[in-house]
């Protein structure tokens, strides 16, 4: 039996809370365990993917730089809800990585493919 696949939904803005960072940590560890794992971004979670974040002045880790390394950790390309981007006036060019942009109907169809789902 193959390992169950895991979807991690990240839905909070970065830096204010530890949610985004802890979702990413779980993704990286799952990847090294050989688990099929994908990050899903929805709602304010999409703000985590903005480029040009500079967190020195607020003393938080700029973990947005780690998204570029997901591939290295065997974590597949993140799935991003285009409706959440549009509601926030974010264009795909202002994201820090190439993401798998999907409208809600595809977003939920992709989500349904996973064996387990956790949210942060």
């Amino acid at each position: 039996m193959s390992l169950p696949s895991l979807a991690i939904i990240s839905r909070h803005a970065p830096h204010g809370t530890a949610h985004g960072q802890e979702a990413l940590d779980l993704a990286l560890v799952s990847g090294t365990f050989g688990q099929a794992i994908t990050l899903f971004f929805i709602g304010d979670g999409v703000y985590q993917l903005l480029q040009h974040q500079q967190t020195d002045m607020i003393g938080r880790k700029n973990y947005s730089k780690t998204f570029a390394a997901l591939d290295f950790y065997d974590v597949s390309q993140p799935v991003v809800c285009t409706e959440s981007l549009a509601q926030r006036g974010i264009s795909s060019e202002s994201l820090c990585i190439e993401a798998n942009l999907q409208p809600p109907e595809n977003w939920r169809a992709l989500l349904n493919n996973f064996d387990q789902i956790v949210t942060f």
Partner: protein
Amino acid sequence: MARFSLLITSSPVDDQGVVTAINFARAALAANHQLCGIFFYGPGTHNANSLQLVPTDEFQPYSAWLELAAQGIPLHVCVTAAARRGILSETEANEQDSVSYNLTPPFQASGLGQFIELMNSADRVVQF
């Protein structure tokens, strides 16, 4: 008979999930299901703080977790998430020259890999 693992990301005081989680765990055991283990992550690691002092006329989440542990359910705490929230095992406290510590058995200091194992051995994972 199904095998459940629970992921607890709610703090006992400032989130809603803990009473629900404990009632769910009790109902699962009452129905003869198996609980592979409970993993505490993020704000959920506050559950492992042994110094919690809740007014006696209210629900005591810490005691309720201990009761589940007494039935053989492993309680795993993500040590990284716990440490930044001020929840330290005796070993970690010693490394910091602190005589005080607040993560004690049956809560176990674990890593995220433990959650992956709990997930892989369960039929259902439920998050609270």
